């Protein structure tokens, strides 16, 4: 059993919210020691590459949450998000692209105290995570033994998000600003397919 740990910083820059439904697109910065080590080793062991493979660090996330109606300060709901990280190195006759996908489905606990701190909120998200890593060489999926090379993993994630949102009453949209979010994913069962 292999465990991969990583955490992410998360900066929301676009968000929309109806009363119970909210969605956002975010930039995500990833720490993943094992993958970083793997790419660093890949680069180290291949002096013939003119351009080194960038680390998988920068990604985009699209997420949606549905918060169940409640008069309490502590609400709960469901959360779905998709994240993509890409690393591309163009070398003569060897263009190598790594594409990493995450899909999170989880339970969200939303806390907002409008009496003391209007607009500020805190989310706790507990989710199941699946991930997939694909490699492309020279714009083609990397195959060997006539099978596409890919790896999958499943695990769990715990996210904490704090933010502030501004209500634009005319449009009934609320712009939401997440100050930070830290997610810790633990892959309890990476399924390395190829």
């Amino acid at each position: 059993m292999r465990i991969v740990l990583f955490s992410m910083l998360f900066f929301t820059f676009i968000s929309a919210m109806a009363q119970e439904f909210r969605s956002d697109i975010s930039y995500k910065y990833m720490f993943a020691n094992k993958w970083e080590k793997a790419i660093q080793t890949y680069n180290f062991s291949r002096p013939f590459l003119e351009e080194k493979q960038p680390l998988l660090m920068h990604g985009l996330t699209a997420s949606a949450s549905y918060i169940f109606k409640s008069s309490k300060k502590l609400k709960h709901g469901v959360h779905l998000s998709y994240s993509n990280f890409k690393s591309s190195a163009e070398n003569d006759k060897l263009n190598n692209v790594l594409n990493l996908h995450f899909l999170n489905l989880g339970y969200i606990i939303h806390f907002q105290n409008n009496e003391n701190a209007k607009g500020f909120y805190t989310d706790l998200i507990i989710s199941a995570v699946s991930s997939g890593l694909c490699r492309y060489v020279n714009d083609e999926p990397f195959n060997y033994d006539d099978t596409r090379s890919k790896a999958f993993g499943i695990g769990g994630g715990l996210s904490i998000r704090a933010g502030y949102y501004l209500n634009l009453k005319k449009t009934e949209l609320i712009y939401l600003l997440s100050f930070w979010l830290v997610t810790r994913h633990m892959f309890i069962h990476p399924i390395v397919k190829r």
Partner: protein
Amino acid sequence: MNRRHFIKKTTLFSIGGLLIPSAFLSACKKESLFEDLNYDGKVIIIGAGAAGLYAAYILKSKGINFQILEASPNYGGRLGKLTGFANFPIDTGAQWLHGKNSILGDLITKSNTKLTLDNSETKYWFNNQLVNSLPQNTAIFEGDDLPDISYSDFALQKGLGNEYKYIVENIAGDQGAAASRLSVFGNNQDEENWNSGDDDFKFQETFFDLIDTQIANQVKDSILLNTIVSKIDYSQPTIQITDSNNNSYNADKVIITVAIPILKSADIQFVPALPNEKTTAFSKIGMDAGMKVFLKFSNKFFDQNIIGGPICAAYADDSIGKAQNDQVLLAFVMGEQAEYLTSLGSDTSITTALLQELDTMYNGQATASFIVSHVQNWTTNPFVKGAYSYSTIGMGDARNIAAQPINKKLYFAGEAMNTNGHHQTVHGAVETGYREVINILNDIKK
């Protein structure tokens, strides 16, 4: 502040919050290992096979001072090239690329090296006749809970009787071993770790050419050929290496890539002596006799693969994947069969024994159309002494122990030291080459 200004400011704040920390964090991370590490010590590599050449190639890329000491008159180790024998170049050593999911796979793509998938057809010599298939399934050596016994004993347990002896010998021979010595459990564990791919590829040119043009060419100026290392004294901070002509070489780190029989037979004296645990581990790693005999004929009477001969359990059409098609049949002889042929004493006797076997299979056509042979006996090569390493019965963790560095001075590479299931292969040897450079640089960093 009105709403418009507020939104503008929060948007700017958000983008700033995105860019500034990520730019800072990105700058802290390096794309490769040891990017900022400078080392002014000297590394000596013993052996200019695939592992030694690749270690040198990595050291050169890091700007580290190195030298390679090679015992034989040629570099390449168990890679070699024969020209002029046929109208295509021949690999006298390793010739199949076992899977493309490796450094060499990337190097092949980048260098546009031409490969052909070897999906040649097989005939079996079974009950004194050539047949297209076997009555019983012989794929019995993979699975769970396999015992740590030999392939030959396990085959008998599973009902593969004496008529399958040389079929099983061929299966073990693929691993460079006699069926009586290869561990079912050990080899299955190796197979479970294997992840470079199961397809076998042949080079239109040669495997040697790939290593020569892409790797050796970068470092060959630093190879001292005909330098037989006889002693490594690592008792002092500076390691002193002595060759058979009493020349001395000083180094701060030494990467030893010699074939495992050289370490087993103590051809190199270590001062102080290597720990018992280490020498015991060496002794547990198997390496049997192995030879390749190339038989050139005037016409093609033979099949693409012939499996199960009592003299040679594996013949293969060597023209497959080549641009030209002279009729060359490779006799790939391993284990006890290689020991027997070696015992015949001369290349002529070896060739005669193989022709007799082929005559039996093909009604005398072999001798009738035989032109010339070339025997490459790796067993009698004093700097190799065998084919490639395999997992013996009761081997346990020997490969891991054997591969461990000693005192941050001696580092061990070569196919036999590959601990991720890729031993026996060129790409496995290459992996140990860069692994030991990483070990050296990690030790320096500490």
